[in-house]
């Protein structure tokens, strides 16, 4: 905390000279050790704000742990996800024999199943975020940049996707394509989710293309592609990154819904939604079968959303730090 105060003190004493022409002259009384004010770059400002966002920082730690656990599931899980111990059936959560989340009625260790389930869910979430961000950004960028009939066609296309009853389409697509594979599920979800980002990026590009620095770039001979992807895209990274993190959570939840309904990832591969569905029949007696994967799901989604929040706050230049 003292570090924080020290860092802030110069700011309250005198506004930092942005040009940085003669930084040392402005602060006569400051101790020599930290008298110099360094002009902060965009990135430094962003990092400062983000590091101060407590919920986001906690979430990053938790999510990193979850992701690592999912990646190294074989090492982390005390049992295999399909390993049956006939002697340990229906055990409550306990540290004994490392059944942290208890076992199900077949005697499978639920902690291990949840860890492997996280792997599936995160895979789907990450894949959907990646795909939908790529597609949405490109389509939104082209529509917003060229306007006119290009915009009209692309936007009617996104409207079309937007008005589809999502769940019904997902169920049909999963049934037709076979939802068993998390990669396939990821592609299907991405095909529906890219529209939000396309609209956001289109809006950003519509306003960016009128900026003077875009005209200046044009006047210096830059071509369309260069202007779009080198000059305008970096200026719209804020909303894109934030949207991508939020999509991770949405995708994980939809995948869980699909699995819960039996159309998502197929057994024996565990997924968080499928685990909740499995436990449903025994919920009144073996509550941990629903609660444990449910809590994990909530934890993942909360973390991702908090990180998205933190990113949004940090990337928003209009939001000033409060001292």
């Amino acid at each position: 905390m003292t570090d924080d105060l020290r860092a802030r003190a110069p700011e309250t004493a005198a506004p930092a000279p942005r040009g940085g022409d003669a930084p040392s002259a402005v602060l006569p009384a400051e101790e020599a050790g930290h008298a110099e004010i360094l002009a902060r770059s965009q990135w430094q400002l962003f990092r400062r704000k983000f590091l101060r966002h407590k919920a986001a920082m906690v979430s990053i730690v938790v999510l990193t742990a979850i992701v690592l656990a999912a990646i190294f599931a074989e090492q982390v899980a005390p049992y295999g996800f399909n390993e049956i111990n006939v002697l340990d059936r229906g055990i409550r959560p306990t540290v004994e024999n490392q059944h942290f989340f208890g076992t199900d009625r077949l005697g499978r260790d639920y902690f291990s199943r949840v860890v492997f389930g996280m792997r599936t869910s995160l895979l789907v979430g990450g894949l959907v975020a990646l795909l939908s961000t790529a597609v949405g950004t490109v389509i939104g960028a082209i529509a917003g940049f060229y306007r006119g009939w290009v915009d009209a066609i692309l936007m009617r296309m996104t409207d079309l996707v937007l008005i589809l009853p999502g769940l019904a389409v997902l169920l049909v697509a999963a049934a037709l394509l076979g939802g068993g594979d998390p990669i396939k599920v990821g592609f299907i979800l991405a095909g529906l989710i890219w529209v939000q980002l396309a609209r956001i990026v289109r809006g950003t590009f519509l306003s960016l293309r009128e900026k003077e620095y875009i005209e200046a770039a044009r006047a210096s001979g830059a071509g369309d592609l260069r202007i779009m992807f080198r000059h305008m895209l970096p200026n719209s990274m804020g909303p894109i990154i934030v949207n991508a993190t939020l999509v991770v959570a949405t995708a994980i939840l939809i995948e869980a819904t699909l699995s819960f309904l039996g159309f998502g990832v197929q057994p024996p591969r565990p997924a968080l939604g499928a685990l909740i569905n499995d436990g449903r029949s025994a919920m009144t007696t073996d509550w941990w079968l629903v609660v444990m994967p449910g809590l994990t799901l909530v934890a993942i989604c909360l973390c991702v959303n908090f990180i998205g929040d933190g990113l949004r706050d940090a990337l928003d230049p209009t939001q000033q730090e409060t001292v």
Partner: protein
Amino acid sequence: MTEPILSIRDLVTEFATPDGTVHAVDHVSYDVYPGETLGVVGESGSGKSVTVMSVLGLIPQPPGKISNGEILFEGRDLLRLSNAQLRKVRGKDIGMVFQDPMTSLNPVLKVGHQIAEAMQVHADVPDDKARLRTIELLELVGVPNAEARYDQYPHEYSGGMRQRGMIAMAIANEPKLLIADEPTTALDVTIQAQVLEVLSKAKEETNAATILITHDLGLIAEMADRVVVMYGGRVVETGDVDTIFHEPRHPYTLGLISSLPRLDQDLERLVPIEGQPPSLINLPSGCAFHPRCHLGQGRERCRTESPPLVEVGTAHRSACHFTDEMGREIALIESEMGTAIEGVDQ
């Protein structure tokens, strides 16, 4: 006389608006000769900027449209070039300095990169060479500590510094023509002088012809060799800078000069131009200046007949029906001001 490097002929640029078509540039012609500085003056909305935007092909279409004329740059008609061909001219043969340095640099890219990019768009320059050349350019335009400044973002630059950066970007490819669109309007007076100095230096270094767009007559007096005065989308007077300031042959030019405060003389009072700049949607009939004109006094001919731009002296042209009465008008204004109008240039 040498061939002009840029020759604008009968240019008409119009914009479609909900209230009708606006002729922002209405049959404008002027030439720019190699090495000279041409000053273009006029009020806001007189078509100064739209003319040069048309030259660079930067008029948004729609709603804009160039419906007539030709723009000859080194003999080639820029209006007939394809987009790809035009792109090779922009930034390479014609450099542009924009009005507001605060908004003309991309906030998320390093200033050095933006200048280097201006080079790399047009030629296959390796990154390290572009960097060295950019640092040279930054030094040339007087950015101190150029090495470190290269890696900074626009918000770390002051206004004057940014305009220096913009000038560096404009001359990066040693253009043959430099267009400065009100380069000092957004800057402090003290910084203005510095930026003008840099602009002159940059011009010397590259020997580029320059179009200086401004509504500051002082700037024109100091920098320009020849002057084009625009009003309501038309050229109303052109001539070399001394002629324009000493013997204006258009009442609008005279009005501009006599409304200018002077440091070197004790003026009784300034003489403003009465009325408002014309609305381009509804331009006055005949001579667009007639409702505000002292000389015309609402004469029939002024209201009905648009005056052509005619020769009134050596390389001096004016668009007024009654140029021969200007001598009397000047005397009148001088008596009102209590001083001679000439001598604005230092």
